[in-house]
């Protein structure tokens, strides 16, 4: 019997029997019969060793092709069977895809962290670096080096919480910082220009609590000092910040304001439509200005050589504006129903 004849026969028998398979069990048996270790195709290949080398090559190749072919047909038959089964069983083997999934606990950031990071990112991309400072400060840094002498009326801007401490002269001179600005002086004392930093942190005021006031809140201070930094640069930097945080369609307004450690002083507002209001209003989002020459002198910089600008942003106010939060006290109530919204 010529070998090719046998192969051809094997092929047609196998295909015919495959056609007749109606279950997975049938298919398994078929597989053992033809493709298994002791199956026909395997057996055929094993017998090739008795043939002449030239025939061995020809038939070997044909037998291998047959093996590949039958394997493919088996897969196809299997797929067809599974399709049939699913179609038959489908009505019963169906899940309710609308039921809730298995929830994985995922935490979220405090809204103040989110907004702080947004602000930091805006300034970091403009070459600023984040630094931090102490929340409990000396009067010297919080006020005096910032051109706010003792018994000066500008101290009225900051109602201060004092630490129960007195120095050798019996003066109360330790306090909870009323703003992040003391870091302006601390940084300039430690570093030479150029300086470009932002200082996020907690600040404290002696202030009765209501919907828009807290005795404890957060600021981001900024400071840039070098030769040749101008008011125009300040406007550009702060405008860019506002654009990033609130989008370029928001209007920004710079008006004159007074802070003892800057001159000229600025208040930056953005246009704001309060819920329920019928017209836009200006909402102050930060105080800023050119660093006062006395502040520069106080830390040993020559104001004839160096200029710079500083700014202070209230985090809570920005978060309230951006997220539509109507009560500042929510930030520290730590009600998870509130916090999980962010």
């Amino acid at each position, binding site marked *: 019997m010529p070998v090719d004849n046998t192969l051809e026969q094997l092929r047609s028998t196998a295909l015919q029997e495959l056609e007749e398979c109606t279950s997975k069990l049938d298919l398994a048996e078929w597989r053992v019969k033809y493709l298994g270790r002791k199956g026909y195709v395997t057996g055929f290949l094993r017998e090739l060793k008795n043939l002449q080398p030239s025939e061995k090559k020809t038939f070997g190749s044909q037998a291998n092709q047959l093996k590949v072919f039958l394997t493919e047909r088996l897969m196809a038959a299997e797929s067809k069977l599974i399709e049939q089964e699913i179609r038959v069983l489908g009505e019963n083997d169906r899940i309710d895809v609308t039921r*809730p999934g298995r929830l994985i606990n995922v935490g979220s950031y405090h809204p103040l962290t989110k907004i702080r990071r947004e602000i930091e990112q805006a300034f970091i991309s403009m070459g600023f670096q984040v*630094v931090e400072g102490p929340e409990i400060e000396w009067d010297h840094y919080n006020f005096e080096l910032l051109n706010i002498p003792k018994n000066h*009326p500008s101290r009225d801007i900051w109602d201060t919480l004092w630490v129960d401490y007195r120095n050798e002269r019996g003066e109360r001179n330790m306090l*909870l910082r009323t703003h992040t600005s003391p870091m302006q002086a601390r940084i300039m004392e430690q570093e030479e220009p150029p300086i470009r930093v932002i200082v996020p942190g907690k600040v404290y005021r002696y202030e009765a609590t209501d919907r828009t006031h807290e005795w404890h809140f957060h600021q981001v201070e900024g400071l840039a000092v070098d030769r040749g930094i101008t008011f125009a640069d300040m406007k550009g*930097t702060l405008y860019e910040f506002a654009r990033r945080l609130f989008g370029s369609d928001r209007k920004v307004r710079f008006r004159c304001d007074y802070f003892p450690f800057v*001159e000229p002083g600025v208040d930056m507002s953005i246009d704001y439509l309060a819920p329920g209001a019928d017209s836009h209003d200006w909402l102050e989002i930060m105080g800023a200005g050119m660093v006062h020459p006395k502040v520069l002198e106080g830390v040993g910089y020559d104001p004839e050589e160096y200029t710079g600008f500083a700014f202070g942003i209230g985090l809570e106010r920005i978060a309230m504006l951006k997220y539509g939060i109507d009560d500042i006290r929510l930030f520290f109530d730590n009600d998870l129903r509130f916090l999980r919204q962010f």
Partner: protein
Amino acid sequence: MKIPISWLKDFVEIGIPVHELADKLTMAGLEVGSIERIGGWEKCLIGMVRSVIPHPNADRLRLCEVDTGSTIHQVVCGASNVDVEQKIVFAEIGASLVDSRNGKPKTLKAAKIRGERSEGMICSELELGLSEEHEGILVLPEDAPTGMSLDDYMGDYVLDIEPTPNRADWFSILGVAYEIAALTGQEIHEPLVEYSEDGENIHDQVKVTIQSPDLCPRYSASLIKGVSIDESPRWLQGRLKKAGIKVVNNVVDVTNYVMWEYGQPLHAFDYERLLKHHVIIRKGYTGEEIITLDGVQRGLFSDTLVIADDRDAIALAGIIGGKNSEIVGTTRDVFLESASFDPENNRKTSHSFDLRTEASIRFEKGLRPDLVEVALKRATQLIRDIAGGVVAKGKIDEYPGREEPRKIMLTDRKMKQVLGIEISPANIEKTLNGLGFQCCVTDGAVDVRIPYWRSDIAIEEDLVEEVARIMGYEAIPTTMLSTPIPHHKGDDYYMFRENIRDLLVREGLQEIVTYSASSFETLARTRLIDDSEKLVRIANPMSGDFEYMRPVMGAHILQALISNLSFNRGPIAMFEMGRVYLKRERDLPEERDIIAGLLYGPCSEEGWLGSDGQFDFYDAKGIVESLLGRLFLTGNYTALENGFLHPGKSASINLFDRSVGKIGEIHPVVQRDFGVTEGTAVYFEMDVRSMFEMATETFPRMKPLARFPSTIRDVSLLVDLNVTYASIKNVFEQNKLIAKAVLEDVYEGDGIPEQKCSLTFRLYLQSPIKTLSSGEVNDAINKVLDKLKAETGSILRGTEGQFE
């Protein structure tokens, strides 16, 4: 501070709508908080009463004819003060008025009163909403023009401005007027002051001695004799009322009026009540007392500056007058003071008496001594005009602290250096002139003379601001920083800390932020604090709840848990990255960043897929271990004595041999004391700086991947209960072929002897250089079992009988 527009118009013309004006002022730095409108009296006109006859059918009513220029109206009027030839306010039918019976708005209708037609109404102040006065009609001055609408005649706006603390001059009509003049290109008209001094020489009648010239650089005064104390005229009262100033009598009202106009506080003394007519400016004596005009008896301090007569203090200088010298109804002669006082001392004194007056809020900001004279003359004239009397010849003017008018050179260079643009000298001159500065343009600079009312201008930069704000900040261009970006030193610690936040959020924890302070009682409930002396105390806390800066984190996070319990069934998993404040001697407290976390309630959201049980110690530990792992740190855990945590279920978290934190169930007593009545809260905290210092690797270094397969073997060990998992794990880790040992099961009970437990480990054996044979695997297992037996007394389960 309230500024009526009508008063401003005495000084400057206002040609723009009031809202636009308010906007301009706000942009230039003088915030207008609100604008109050006085008026809006539709259909109210000035009329003249032509005739008054009794009402035929009512005793108390009259029939009046009112002429409004074009028409004569018949009106029924009930007021007793109505009279012929009076100028009155006539409301036509349809006018909106205030109902005098109930204070509510009403619309006037045509009526017949007791059979007589009434075609309108003659109004009282109450009906016009001007005051509570409804006894009688409002009678206008004779020169009020008949037929003019009331709005045109006396309508007004009042600006409520919020001056910044540097601008004493914004506490005056004049200062605001100069602002408006500069912003709108108008001129200032100061009132003309002229009066004759017909009395005897003042120096023969009064003596002034300044004993504290450092605190009183200038003291001037005039003397007006023979005045009649009375009510002020209507126009003056009207202005004071609009400005929110209490009306007292004509002399006192004038001092307040001039203070409003010029910003210079003045004080009027009753000349006859000054002992020996000797006025002394001195410091208080210890034990000295004064009863001030507010009726309060005050003990003086040795640094309180007072005005005194030959014996007693008669005023707190620059703050408030004394009862013993006040102007009363019988006063005939007025000693009028206009002086300069040291702002710092003034502020200190007003703070120490907790007494802030209109005078002190001006003096504390620093007033130029030049202002003294201008205000004195204006007030002397007004008193003479209004209260009568004769002005003594000459003035007192003690001026020990004489100051020359200040000049500042504003260079083009400074202008450019600060603003970034060049502004022409002509422009600078024009802008500054508008504000009342006098300029002299030189080469490359402008010489600027500072006007007497501007005490805030001290340096060149102040003038730069003046120019910029009047031109408008909008006029300055917008540029980006073009200076080089500074070299930044590493901010690894900041990144490390932010990374911890990210990791814990990913672990399923909610970030919270709590208050930094607490009451001692709350802190003591943690059983970690027992001595308030060791804490940073706030001298003036908002309340007892926030008196001490926290030295520990646990109390606040537990409070956050409690505030959630009524709304939340869990899972509650939260963390705070916050500071604690540790007192140090003679130095600022140490502030340390602490990461603290708390778990409570069920591990997973409730639902149809079932729950994973309640949070316990090992949930917290898993979080800590994952966190440390992602920070390339490995912790070890040792026993801990800590009153806050459960003694049997807590541990110190150590990195190498340094304790960086703690973890455990909250002690049941602590939990109860904080008000958590059921369940178990699990807590962890770590000192972030310590973690950072122990983190030698801040970024990962790749380790090669295993190339050969691992073989898995499970071993169940019989272990003494006092032998820790860590000690067994340690033995496994020492064997080089055991790549990983996973604790698969812990079992105690049936089949296990007392004081023992069964620990089942799955061991992954693997070599970096080849596939292990089963012989090599067995050898390794046997070696490790021998070692476990020798070091921990643990044996393979099922072999216990064989070796005994």
